[in-house]
């Protein structure tokens, strides 16, 4: 589903020094697979995500989604790609305060779907995420775990093929982290969504099908999913 081929991103600093943020990364993620990507700060995780989200042009190499090179998309096509083919979940909750759970969740969907239909589509998913009784509640009144689940609902609202999760459990306690990761894995398997999960959280590996470590822009070892990673990696 997602394939990175010899992906490279170099930055020139003012003094002429070159920073190799991502340095020849190749990997692939299948539909329904959850890949956990670990790495310390500065290892190139965010740069990698930006390139996969068509927000940053690689220095070389390519990002293929269902065989299409998304690195060369126009701005308009890139927006369309992010809207309909990609879901993005982040640690900080990008929910609009003063707006209900349901309206926050349908935000992406509203671009192409009428409001009534969007609501009808989202309700089952929100109920599935345990937010059935919180539909009319304003975002700022939800707990951290609930907010993260609204973000998952929004990310999945357009039925994307690929989901990028950047530290999705960064603000959650252990129990909530388990809940969110479990839901993420379940939903993605059900819907056949490929997931790239970037995290420091050792728990995430327990829910991943595959775990990769990134260090200094290069892949540095891998292990099968299902067991928490060593702290030295994260």
């Amino acid at each position, binding site marked *: 589903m997602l394939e990175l081929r010899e992906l490279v991103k170099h930055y020139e600093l003012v003094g002429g020094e070159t920073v190799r943020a991502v340095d020849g990364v190749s990997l692939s993620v299948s539909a329904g697979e959850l890949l956990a990507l670990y790495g310390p700060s500065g290892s190139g995780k965010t740069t990698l995500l930006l390139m996969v989200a068509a927000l940053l042009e690689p220095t070389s190499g390519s990002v293929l989604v269902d065989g299409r090179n998304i690195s060369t998309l126009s701005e308009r096509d890139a927006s369309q790609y992010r809207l309909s083919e990609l879901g993005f979940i982040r640690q900080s909750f990008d929910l*609009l305060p003063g707006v209900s759970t349901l309206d926050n969740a349908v935000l992406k969907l509203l*671009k192409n779907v009428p409001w009534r239909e969007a609501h009808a589509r989202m309700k089952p998913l929100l109920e599935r995420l345990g937010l059935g009784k919180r539909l009319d509640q304003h975002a700022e009144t939800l707990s951290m775990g609930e907010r993260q689940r609204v973000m998952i609902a929004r990310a999945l609202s357009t039925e994307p093929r690929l989901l990028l999760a950047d530290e999705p459990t960064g603000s959650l306690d252990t129990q909530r982290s388990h809940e969110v990761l479990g839901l993420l894995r379940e939903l993605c398997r059900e819907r056949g969504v490929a997931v790239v999960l970037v995290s420091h959280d050792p728990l995430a590996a327990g829910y991943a099908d595959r775990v990769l470590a990134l260090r200094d822009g290069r892949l540095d070892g891998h292990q099968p999913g299902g067991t928490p990673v060593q702290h030295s990696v994260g």
Partner: protein
Amino acid sequence: MFHLYRVRLRSRLLQECFAVIGIAAGVGLLFASQIASNSLSSSVAQLSQGIVGSAKLQVLARDPRGFDQGLLSSVRHVAGVRLAAPLLEANANAVGPRASRSVELIGADESLTRLGGTLVRHTRLAPFGGVGAIVMPGPLARGIGVTRFGAEATLEIGGHVSQAPLYKQLSAHEIGPLIDTPIIVAPLSFAQEMAGLRGRVTRILVTPSPGREQAVRVALTQLAHGRLNVTSTNYDEQLFSKAAAAANQSTVLFAVISALVGFLFAFNAMLLTVSQRRRLIADLRRDGYTPRAVIGVLLLDAAVLGTVGCALGLVLGDELSIQLFHSNPGFLSSAFTVGSARVVGAQSVAVAVAGGMLAAVVAVLSPLRDILSRDPLAAIAPRQLAATRTVTRWRTALGALFVAIAVATLLAIPRLAIVGMVALTCALFLWLPLGLDATLASIARLARKVTSAVPHIAVSELRAGRSRAVAIAATCSIAVFGSVSIQGAHGDLQHGLENAAHDMNAFTDVWVSPAGSFNLLMTQPFPATSLARLQHLASVRQTSVYRGGLLDWRERRIWVIAPPSTARPLIPPSQLVEGNLAAAGTHVRAGGWVVLSQALAAEHHLHIGDSFTLPAPRPSTFRLAAVSTNIGWAPGAIVMNADDYMRAWGSPEPSALNVLLSPGTAPAQGRRAIERALGTGSGLTVQTAGQHADKQHTLTRQGLARLSQIATLILAAAVLATAAAMGAMVWQRRPRLAKLKLEGFSPRELWGTILLESVLLLLVGCAGGALLGLLGQQLLDRALASVINYPVVRSVALPTALAALAIVTAAALAVLSVPGYLAARVPASLALQD
């Protein structure tokens, strides 16, 4: 504390700079409007004080022909009189090679110098070798083109034309702030000769010995025999303040509105830094600082921002007042000598600085409840965004109460119009959040019918930043409110004055009067020698004598209108507010009856049919035939027939000639024939009734021009304030926009969202302001009509309201579109950089 402040400032210099600019703009606006409102009255006071020096009392003539100079020696012999100086003041038209100007000629002798007034401190008032000469301020000399020693200016005074050589130009160094006043000073005897008033003076200034003022006043009153006025030397200032009352009240109102806009501008600018400030409060409290220490840091912040902002604002306001608020005395110059100097008083500086500092302090301390909270992190805790139902109910009820106060003021006590306007402003502030909530709810409902995320995001963003949204809407709302009220009332007043001018010109085809704008109200009588020359012209059907002028009656300099008995209509029909037009016309024509304006009648407790004594040069008894508006002259007006005027003023001299043309003679043709008959050098101006009315319109427009200028400036400031606040708000939202971009929204959609948010805010603010502005207009109209008796034509200024709404919305949107566009181009990667 200083260290903390320095560290913080370094981290958010840009926002601090914006806050400083915001405060500067607010203070600038406030300062400029203060200068504008104070300059006129200060100008009159400066001239008055510049002439009178140490004199405390004065004996004043009641008409421009003055009184016998022989009275001077009697005054000097009064026990307790230390100094007495004679003056002749006459309205004149000064003509030079470059231009002509209406000026006041001041004739004085050396005794005036001893009073120590600024005007004559450096002026020689004795004729040189028996030859009279004049001095005048440099700007006036340059204006008319008479600048060299010995160069001659032509002075036209009441039909007398004289050549006067220039002795010197007065510099600002010599006469200070009087430099911009339209005056010409001449030795007394030369001035008397030029004005055709030999041996006569219009005023004697008196300096009593210490402690003898009251006794001297009594003695002077006895000498005056009830035919002259004995007053203190600041009498002119009192008269002016009454005459300028309407303009002053309006200016006060404008100043209040400008202050509000300025304050909101500064306040909004400061609000932009509130989120950082909240974070700082939480950090400091978490680190163990007491609320007192936190307040100290914030007050230091306010002091620094306020001081820098105020300093910049004062410079900006000063420049603004130079470029935009030229003092334009307009119609008041017909009756008072008013300069065009800007007067920058300490009070103006204090008010402007206080406004700026208050905005800074109020804004930095806006999270005061959180600072004082037991929870150290209260400042950054999530807060309730929507108003509770109880708050909404209270707001609705209080807003209704304020509107009720305004309506009650309108109906019952129109003189308290300013209270009504303040009540409407309060109602506006209370109802605006409700209006915004209701609009957002409606848009949210409408948005469900369209397939687009743009309206949903716009509504959500506005709900999320509700406080700031309300503040921005309030800024444009208050400006539109002020502008619509003032422009609407201004239009109604202008219309009413035009009607009055039309009525005043309806009884003649051609006016013949002394030259100069002073003489629009016919203040300078002239010999009737030219009347005979006109009577035999083929194009002339009838000539008659119009008399009139100004009369000081207690604290009012009233306009006396005395058309010939043959005038039809004798009483301006559209100006009557009480009494029967036909009966009043018959009475006034027959003589012994007059029409008084409402405020004058009320002040003297007069009703139709009552008799009273008018303090004319020859005090005369009249009966009241009807009550009118003030016919466009704020202190009040009196209409009598020309023969009654002749008796009461003891002079047959006309103030103007009215000429009715023969049938078939076009006004312009008749005017040319009359000009030919009078010949050059008559010192008289010939105008058709249409030209005369136009000149009156021009003067009234000039008098009201400042109102338009300030109303326009308020709008311009509101546009800038709104656009700047929204621009800054949009710029701060860039990370949020980046997140939306991350979700797949294109820059175009994000730009659309920004513009929609802006349109909603502007429309809610402007519509609220315009709606209450229309009520404000009615308040001002009623105040002008019933308190100052202006001939106001009531209307509802819907076109003005719509224009203000459209202008502010379009202009702010145009200004905002650029930062909005740039913000929408934010790189999505910003969303990942927390």
